[in-house]
């Protein structure tokens, strides 16, 4: 590759700078507002220099069991991620390997699960979970999120499995390994970047989801985003707590993505077959 010229570098960094401002401004506002004393929160122009306070965070955990809601969120997000990645991978492997003329239809059918508008199924879900007694439980949310996450995982993982050379699986078969051993020790490790990508998408979707969490949970299984919303009541909007809650919500997602990042490296299959 040619070394970029100075003009190109300036252009690239300018664009990056603009993107950074666009994406980081809301996060800056959340972070700064969460430590701003309430009286100066809506000053114009915004107060850039002020004495930071942790009052909002203290209120956040003192007034409501916010730790519990974070725990719910984590349980639901991790549960749905694990469930979706596990079953999605198995399904994707079957779709990738089984040669059948209707296999594409099956794959499309799975994808079509993601096409319905969520609002359309909220009420049916509500009735179903109420009937079976799962309303306001993390399991209900895990199931609902997995119906969206499994199709995504299947399609992502199918692409990764397609790229694992079948010769490697054949070699493992001749080396004396059975189907499960081959999948577990040869195919899956080589599709690890796909697992990481799937896990990140599943986690982020489940972690951020609001509509189903609002409708299907009450005080018991409420997730953090819904809990933050509850600071917005008819008589007052507690901006400080909302900002503090929002900032806390940001953290696990960032940690999870950074953890998975080292697996997001492609090129693991290089050097296996010519």
């Amino acid at each position, binding site marked *: 590759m040619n070394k970029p010229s100075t003009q190109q570098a300036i252009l690239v960094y300018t664009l990056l700078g603009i993107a950074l401002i666009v994406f980081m401004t809301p996060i800056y506002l959340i972070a700064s507002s969460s430590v701003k004393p309430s009286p100066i929160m809506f000053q114009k122009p915004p107060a850039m220099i002020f004495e930071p306070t942790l009052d909002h965070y203290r209120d956040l955990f003192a007034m409501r069991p916010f730790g519990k809601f974070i725990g719910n969120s984590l349980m639901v997000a991790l549960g749905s991620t694990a469930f979706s990645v596990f079953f999605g991978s198995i399904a994707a492997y079957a779709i990738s390997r089984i040669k059948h003329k209707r296999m594409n239809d099956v794959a499309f059918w799975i994808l079509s699960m993601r096409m319905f508008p969520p609002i359309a199924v909220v009420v049916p879900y509500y009735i179903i979970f109420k009937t079976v007694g799962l309303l306001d439980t993390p399991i209900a949310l895990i199931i609902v999120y997995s119906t969206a996450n499994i199709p995504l995982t299947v399609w992502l993982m199918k692409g990764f499995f397609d790229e694992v*050379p079948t*010769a490697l699986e054949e070699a493992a*078969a001749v080396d*004396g390994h*059975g189907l499960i051993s081959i999948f577990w020790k040869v195919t899956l490790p080589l599709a690890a970047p796909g697992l990481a990508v799937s896990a990140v998408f599943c986690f982020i979707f489940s972690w951020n989801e609001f509509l189903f969490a609002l409708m299907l949970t009450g005080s018991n299984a409420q997730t953090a985003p819904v809990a933050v919303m509850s600071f917005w009541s008819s008589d007052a909007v507690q901006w400080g707590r909302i900002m503090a809650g929002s900032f806390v919500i940001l953290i696990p997602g960032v940690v999870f993505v950074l953890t998975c990042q080292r697996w997001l490296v492609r090129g693991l299959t*290089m*050097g*296996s077959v*010519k």
Partner: protein
Amino acid sequence: MSEITLRNVIKRYGAVEVVHGIDLDVEEGEFVVLLGPSGCGKTTTLRMVAGLEDVSDGNLSIGETRVNEVAPKDRGVAMVFQNYALYPHMTVRQNMEFALKPLGLSAKEVARRVDEIANMLGLSELMARRPAQLSGGQRQRVAMGRAMVRTPDVFLFDEPLSNLDAKLRTQVRLEIAKLHNRLGTTVLYVTHDQVEAMTLADKIVIMRDGHIEQVGTPEQVYSQPDNMFVATFIGSPPMNMIPAQVRERELQANGLALKVPPRFEGRLAEGQSVTIGIRPNGLSLAGAEMPNAAPARVEVTEYLGNEALLDLRVGPHELIAEVPALGRPAPGTEISVQFDPDAIHLFDTETGASLSR
């Protein structure tokens, strides 16, 4: 016991039949090479033996056992793949150990076996590397090592040398021959390279279009080809083929008349259409008065060092002759070329079958 037996083995993909009921016996300890042009069904046959392809019909046995429905892992075979198929996420040592895991050996025994084979193949220095960090020749040896650690009953090789450069190929070919002498394991080896086949095989199986054309020792397929396909496929440059007719105890072709060699007498009918086959080294330069000689014009000479190849025009026929390089005629020269009667093969022009037996 580890002999391989194929009886009327058929392979179909949907309605298309690619292997048409072949019979083959591979004796215990024998080195058998499946040889043929691309698409002849040799790799499919090998993969059926490995269990990577289903057998559509017929019987496939390893030892005394019919293995049509036996999973690859239970067949006691080891295979070296054309593209090596090394596990990229494992080191050389892990690649070799992986083949031993299903045997449930102790860690000590696994290490002993792996080290022994690694020593034999000169891989000891490379054990901690991953396949991506190896050269083509090294990968090839790891692939062989992985097959060898299992001490299988049967070795299967699928064009193992085709990804190596010419020099390395010769070297590894020799290694394989030595290993077979040493281990004495039954080997089924697929290649399209006749030199590999001739140098390695106890027995060569020549295939075309899903049929076996001939089974025999390298000497047999070279000197007693069953048909025109085998005759032209084996040998480089290929055997010269001249359409002719039997007339008055002579083989008459356009611009050429050869006496019917004594061993064919009584086997040919007057007026029969035959094809004369003669290898380049069956042709020699001669005086015009000699029997079985014909006038020829040298079109091109190819100098090979010890020998030279002459592209000759004899009447309408283009022939290749192999002659001593010393004193070779110059291009454009009119010469006389002599046909060694002992080197003449005759084939039925219609069926292609040899008339020698």
